[in-house]
């Protein structure tokens, strides 16, 4: 179970203070929360957010955790879904100093910690990068050189989450990153420019014989197609961890 030690303690609600909001792209913001009282998490886990209106009406959604377990704050990155109910509130209305109710951490399958070892293959579609970023940040915080390959697909460079931080990570020993921009590209773009396919996945590696742990996260059609391609090139299905999300928001 991804190395998560089962402690069957109740998962409770926490009221955390928003310490910062960072615009990541036109559609996505990172919400940085004070983590006092937060029980800690494993990279890849998610949490539930609950909003309460004055008339008592409540709405809950789940969001992946973007921060590493080692980070000083707890961070979520939320993509705004225009006809959504919770994501527009989080991405537009929420401000520094507000309180946010969260419950977690949740999920013991789509998780990675340094002790689980590598090599690692991380494949992200759009905001599916969020839980994989928690893994990359965890890897960086622990200063490990575990062979890690990231393949991130985004519509454009401006839509790519954490692009400055990822660019800074480029020099880390053992870390290889490739990006594919499916809709528009900067004039000097030398990365991939098409949807993720078997050829791209073979090129990124690691090879099947190296038995990588694989994490794929993104919209359902992206994950379906990437997971199928990984099986086709010979990776065992049991090594492929997936997390899919639909357009509900």
């Amino acid at each position: 179970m991804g190395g998560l030690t089962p402690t069957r303690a109740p998962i409770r609600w926490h009221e955390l203070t928003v310490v910062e909001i960072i615009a990541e792209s036109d559609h996505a913001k990172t919400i940085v929360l004070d983590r006092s009282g937060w029980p800690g998490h494993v990279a890849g886990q998610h949490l539930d957010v609950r909003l309460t209106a004055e008339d008592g009406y409540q709405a809950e959604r789940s969001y992946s955790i973007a921060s590493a377990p080692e980070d000083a704050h707890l961070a979520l990155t939320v993509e705004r879904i225009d006809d959504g109910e919770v994501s527009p509130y989080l991405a537009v209305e929420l401000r520094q100093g507000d309180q946010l109710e969260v419950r977690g951490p949740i999920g013991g399958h789509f998780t990675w910690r340094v002790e689980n070892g590598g090599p690692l293959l991380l494949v992200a579609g759009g905001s599916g990068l969020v839980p994989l970023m928690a893994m990359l940040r965890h890897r960086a915080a622990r200063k490990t050189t575990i062979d890690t390959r990231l393949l991130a697909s985004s519509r454009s460079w401006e839509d790519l989450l954490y692009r400055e931080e990822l660019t800074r990570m480029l020099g880390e020993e053992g870390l290889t990153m490739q990006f594919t921009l499916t809709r528009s590209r900067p004039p000097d773009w030398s990365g991939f420019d098409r949807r993720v396919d078997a050829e791209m996945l073979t090129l990124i590696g690691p090879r099947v014989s190296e038995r990588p742990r694989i994490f794929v996260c993104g919209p359902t059609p992206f994950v379906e197609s990437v997971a199928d391609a990984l099986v086709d090139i010979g990776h065992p299905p049991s090594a492929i961890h997936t997390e899919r999300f639909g357009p509900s928001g």
Partner: protein
Amino acid sequence: MAPISRGFHGRPRRDVDPARVPPGQYVVNDFPVLSAGPTPRTPLEQWSFAIGGEIAAKSTWTWEQFLALPAETFTVDIHCVTKWSKLGTRWTGVSLDTLLESVETEAGYVTAWCDGGYTTNLSLKDLSAGRAWIVYDFDGQPLEAEHGGPARLLVPHLYFWKSAKWVRGLTFTAEDEPGFWEQAGYNNHGDPWKEERYWGD
């Protein structure tokens, strides 16, 4: 009492009967997909369904034999632990009451097992009295692989992770043995009306 979220009003409440939406859930019109790994694709000629474990006589059905069993078409609401509910979903399949009719056992629990290695545990009680089916048709069409086809378990009165996709068999056990998500932080029972989402709920 939960604190008020400053500036949150919720969207105009949709035209749904609140009595059909369990606490913490919201209604969707699409059909989200959640699975822990790749979608398995077993050819129908290799597919079989088995009932075994601690019972007097084991049974298996081929795909053709399974389709020949008495089927029901019914409409139910489904509730996923990730918060979405989908109302009025129409399925066709075989009631567990039909499949378990001739099973003689003292065992009170069942592990559903699937292509891809997924498991989930249920009490025999939750599988009986017309509340559970093995379905192979959604909304008049063969069930798509990403939604669990060729056949999935359907137990709509529990959170949807109990409705195991790509189900291939049921194993009776004397003890209740937590399955895949039940070992990974999710509630052992999963009643949406009691909001039994996670461990300790």
